[in-house]
């Protein structure tokens, strides 16, 4: 019985953590290049709204997914222009992007609220693997978007740590002046990776409105974009750890609900409030650690994160 509980819990974690997975891996790319983008929540909302709208109007969820990625990319381009070219404050620009995204998605999405059904991305149990005892239900009986997430994790890891462009990406985030001397175009790369971040945040939003909660509801991310940003630090800018964190977060959210049937909870029902707070408490602790220079260095933050690059200026 306990096994079933655990399997269900993990399966649900994998499923509902997928949106955060895409968003946080996208943010890893952006931050690895040295640009902090706090606009994830806004890009996800725009992605979710666009995906639902396009899927409804064209009847094709894949077009919706593509459009969401496109919208995320365009919003991120805006952030890149403001922070890389104009060298404005990345925090302010990112926050502005979140407000733009949530406001715009509410306005443009208003007619979509009436629409209660749109094509969803298909759920596809993988033959044979889905029948495996424990792993089957946890990993191989999911929506297609979840599998795309599985593929993204090793791909992102390999790209960042084992390829030449990945090396350049890390160089730009660690020591842009040196990268520049090597002939790497710092500005172009930062633009590109911020847009990759937007692309993936858009996909994360689409995962919500096309698969996880297939509806358009205003503000439907309910803070998941912020969780994704926090998770990047927790994951030490590593996609594999970000994946573990995303799935874990999905499971932690559900844990209090499952615990409600156990005697421990039944004797102390007010625990519900405490357990619901855990994910946020967790994020705050991670952020506090992340803000300490020494700890941050040990955690492996890109050294130039948050700093605009100015050619021929010292110390950048």
């Amino acid at each position: 019985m306990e096994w079933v509980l655990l399997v269900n819990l993990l399966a649900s974690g994998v499923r509902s953590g997928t949106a955060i997975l895409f968003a946080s891996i996208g943010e890893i790319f952006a931050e690895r290049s040295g640009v902090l983008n706090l606009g994830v929540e806004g890009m996800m909302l725009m992605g979710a709204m666009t995906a639902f709208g396009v899927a409804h109007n064209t009847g094709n969820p894949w077009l919706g997914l593509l459009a969401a990625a496109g919208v995320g990319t365009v919003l991120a381009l805006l952030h890149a222009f403001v922070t890389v070219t104009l060298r404005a404050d990345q925090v302010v620009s990112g926050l502005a992007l979140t407000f733009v995204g949530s406001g715009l998605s509410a306005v443009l999405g208003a007619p979509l609220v009436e629409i209660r059904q749109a094509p969803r991305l298909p759920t596809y149990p993988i033959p044979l693997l889905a029948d495996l005892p424990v792993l089957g239900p946890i990993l191989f009986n999911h929506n297609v978007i979840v599998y795309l997430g599985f593929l993204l994790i090793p791909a992102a890891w390999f790209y960042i740590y084992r390829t030449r462009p990945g090396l350049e990406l890390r160089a730009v985030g660690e020591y842009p002046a040196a990268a520049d001397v090597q002939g790497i175009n710092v500005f172009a790369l930062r633009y590109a990776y911020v847009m990759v971040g937007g692309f993936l945040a858009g996909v994360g939003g689409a995962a919500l409105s096309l698969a996880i909660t297939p509806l358009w509801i205003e503000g439907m991310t309910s803070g998941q974009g912020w969780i994704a940003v926090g998770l990047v630090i927790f994951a030490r800018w590593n996609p594999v750890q970000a994946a573990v964190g995303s799935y874990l977060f999905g499971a932690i959210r559900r844990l209090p609900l499952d615990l409600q049937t156990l005697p421990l909870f039944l004797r102390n029902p007010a625990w519900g409030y405490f357990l619901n707070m855990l994910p946020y408490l967790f994020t705050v602790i991670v952020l506090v650690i992340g803000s300490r220079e020494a700890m941050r260095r040990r955690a492996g933050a890109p050294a130039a994160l948050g700093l605009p690059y100015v050619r021929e200026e010292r110390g950048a």
Partner: protein
Amino acid sequence: MRKTWIGVTLLLITALVLAACVAPAAPAAPSGEAPAPAPAAPETGGIQIPQPVEGKFNVAFVYVGPIGDGGWTYAHNEGRLYLQEKLGDAVHTAYLESVPEGTDAERVIRNLARAGFNAIFTTSFGFMDPTATVAEEFPDVYFVHISGYLKNETNFANLFGGMESMKYLAGMIAGARAAADGQTKIGYIAPFPIPEVIRHINAAALGMRQTCPECTLDIRWIFTWFDPSLERQAAETLMDAGAYVVITGADTAGPVQAAGERGLYGIAYDSRNACDVDPVHCLTVPYWEWGPFYTLLVEQMMDGTFVPDDFYFDVDSGALGLLGFMEGQEPAPGVPAEVIPLVRDVLDQMLSGEMNRFDIFTGPINNNKGELVIPAGVSLTQSDLEGIDATIAAQTGREACTICMNWLAEGVSPDAELP
């Protein structure tokens, strides 16, 4: 560099706190509102007050959530549109959405009154105190607050409805569905342990026992009105624990979708179109029909006959609906044929006023541990239903509850406790 990081951290923490505020702000609210999504909060300074139109009776609505929630606020806005259509050119309606509860709300309500609106409806529990304050300052403006308990003698009333009657019928339908397929478990997604939610759960459990005596109602407390992915996860954990029908008391229709994906059944809440997400697996939705009551109250205000009261409507007012069973509607395909006449019969009695919420809560009724709570022949009072405790009673001059709404009725899973 380091400063930047501390700044980022502080900002993120603020954002998280704002996001988390959704939870602590809402427990006090005995109504189904969706708290505004976190990012909207910092925009409150920029709320623009709409202007009344000369020569018309101007009515303003203050909403806690976005109209786009597809639930609580959506239903209120449908009511506003109904009012506008019914009274036509004689009235002008305006609204403000996603207004945060607390001091901002007071400023918004005051500005609306100052701008010259004749009547102001505030649709969330957290607007109660601000509305009461402003109502004292503007004796010539009418105020109606939804889901609270404060009022005054001249221009301030409160309004809510007996949704428990519809939840009772929803419970009957859920029980019949389970019984028809040899199942014995129903699930209920409960937002907060407050009197409103508890009486809805109890009504659903009592209704369920009418059609499925061996069924039990399993509860999950989610401590929020609005969180699409959490609501969905709650549905999944209920179904994993064996629930055959999932009834939701929260705002979105996600749980119904989750049930449909597994070929099980769901019952939605709040707004009439909630079942459209999966008409095959959605059995029904108990919904609010605010329009008629809004219209009635505004008409009274216009001809000067309005007298403030604790307005609490039941099914016979026409302000409550049960999808599939109201005039011109057909039951969903998932509703077992044998229960349809049964539900229609009880609903007819409710519509005619022959039966109401007090009949549902008439003893003998045991709690879920098998102890007698309501003795035979005794009915709960309105104060009992609303859980008007001694403090509130002293504040409002209302009678205090004797069998307060802090127990779970038989039918609810025997080991369930109130948080």
